[in-house]
């Protein structure tokens, strides 16, 4: 089961042109500057970095929602660019950060979860059955099927987002900060659920997060990004045991673990 590379990205670059206002020339912002990665089947790749480091842009590219300026993303050796919308959707699905923004407020829960199947043209009866199954699997009481997102708690909403992502049985799930909008006790529930589902369904994750403790807990490999570049890319245990770049070391040192005796970490910080 392991060993086979599921997702690979070669030298991904993404430039945005930012208009400089009236009469000024547009600037080019390089959000991602040549990142390569590969994820083995069943693995979890953690992508960490601070805000604006390009990790969310990279996530959108891996999901096929954005096209890289150059470079290629391929799933099982087939380029995303050559896939149809529906083919890609059946294999890669997202989980976004804020479940308050990732669920359409005007749709009922069962409609939201069933969307990927409906797009794929699955008959309505089959969709209903699978939505129930998926709600069971993600720990959502089926009585909530008719509810609207505004009537649910944050944790329940994120479960809905997970159910929607998994209903078409994708192989790869790209989780963009899946727990950072949630309370700690809910974060634990969702992380446990993601772990259980991965084992149960043989999923592969790309986990984008700024929370290094979460990444350490879940990921098998970690890619550290800074200013659009990959600073360090190694197996989790190695990276946490002995970071090679100063930047990674700084990130690791700034994790605030619940150990009062240590006080605030004493590290030299780059000037703003």
């Amino acid at each position: 089961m392991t060993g086979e590379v599921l997702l690979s990205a070669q030298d991904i670059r993404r430039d945005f042109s930012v208009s400089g206002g009236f009469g000024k020339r547009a600037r080019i912002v390089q959000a991602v500057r040549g990142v390569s990665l590969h994820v083995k089947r069943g693995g979890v790749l953690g992508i960490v970095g601070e805000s604006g480091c390009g990790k969310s842009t990279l996530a959108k590219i891996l999901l096929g929602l954005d096209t890289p300026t150059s470079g290629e993303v391929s799933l099982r050796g087939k380029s995303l660019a050559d896939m149809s919308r529906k083919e890609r959707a059946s294999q890669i699905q997202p989980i976004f950060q804020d479940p308050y923004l990732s669920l359409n407020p005007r749709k009922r829960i069962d409609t939201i979860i069933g969307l990927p199947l409906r797009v794929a043209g699955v008959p309505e009866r089959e969709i209903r059955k699978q939505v129930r199954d998926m709600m069971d699997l993600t720990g959502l009481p089926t009585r909530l099927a008719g509810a609207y997102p505004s009537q649910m708690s944050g944790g329940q909403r994120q479960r809905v987002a997970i159910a929607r992502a998994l209903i078409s049985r994708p192989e790869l799930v790209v989780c963009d900060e899946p727990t950072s909008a949630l309370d700690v006790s809910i974060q634990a529930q969702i992380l446990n659920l993601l772990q259980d589902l991965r084992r149960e369904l043989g999923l592969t994750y790309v986990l984008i997060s700024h929370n290094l403790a979460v990444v350490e807990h879940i990921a098998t490999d970690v890619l550290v990004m800074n200013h659009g570049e990959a600073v360090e890319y190694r197996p989790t245990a190695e990276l946490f045991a002995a970071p090679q770049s100063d930047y990674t070391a700084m990130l690791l040192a700034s994790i605030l673990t619940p150990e009062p005796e240590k006080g605030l970490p004493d590290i030299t910080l780059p000037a703003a």
Partner: protein
Amino acid sequence: MAFWIRACVSSDRLQMKEPMTATEIIAPSDAPGAPDAKTVPERARSDTWRRAASHPGLLIGAALVLAIFVMALLAPVLAPRDPYSQDLTARLIPPVWATDGSWSHPLGTDALGRDYLSRILYGARISLLIGFGATAIAAVIGTTMGVLAGYFGGKADFIVSFVVNVRLALPAMLVALVVVALVGGSLTVVIWTLGLLVWDRFAVVMRAATQQIRTLDYLSAARAAGASVPRILLSEVMPNVMGALIVVATLEIAQAILFEAALSFLGLGVQPPTPSWGLMISEGKSHMFFRPWVIAIPGAALFVLVLAINLLGDGIRDVTAPEGRA
């Protein structure tokens, strides 16, 4: 006017951004007491209804609009006489509350002896038909343009903004006058002329509403689910901009009704002897000093209908508060 609407739509949003609303601070991310079995969807609906029931403007507006609708619909049954039949022996009879009024013509008669009550009832049909017809045409044009511009941005946005600006530069009333003068006045011509002229507000508001949600993750999720662009626009975007659409539509209906009255008053709208309120005012204008009711009655009808529609529109916006529920 377009700016005024933009301001009122965006002030709704501003309200949400106030630093401290009670719900913001107290809303637990894990809601107290998980929603119960059946009550969940019902509760939201009952909330909306409760808010509606305690909104006097909405209730009054809705009641009046409904009443006028029923009157227009049942005009053949309710009208005491044929609105077209003239009776030159009974010209300019005052309404029943005047000293020499009589119950045979409760609202009196016009200069040709036609029963005013019957003409008002039939006139409501014209006003509503034009209001809703023209607005429906405008809504389709404006919403299509606005949603496309808002969703795609870039070139689409540039083109739509240009077209909207061109439209705003045209004096709508004059264009309508010219068109009607050239083509000739008729109900159909008036509806289409107005419909093709008053879509600008729809475009502006729908563009803004769509822009506000275009980057939200539920649209990304739909894209990631493989949904096509038409599907995303119709099934994911539209329900979320519907609130704004309804508010604009009510204002535009009122606007179109007034527009028709103005055109008819100038003799370029609906042609006699069709009973249109604007036309009735126009026909009564030579008698207005000695028999003020000939213009006061259709004027009042127009005022009540437009006020009712505006009250209803404001009420719907307050009650559904599309953004607040998200």
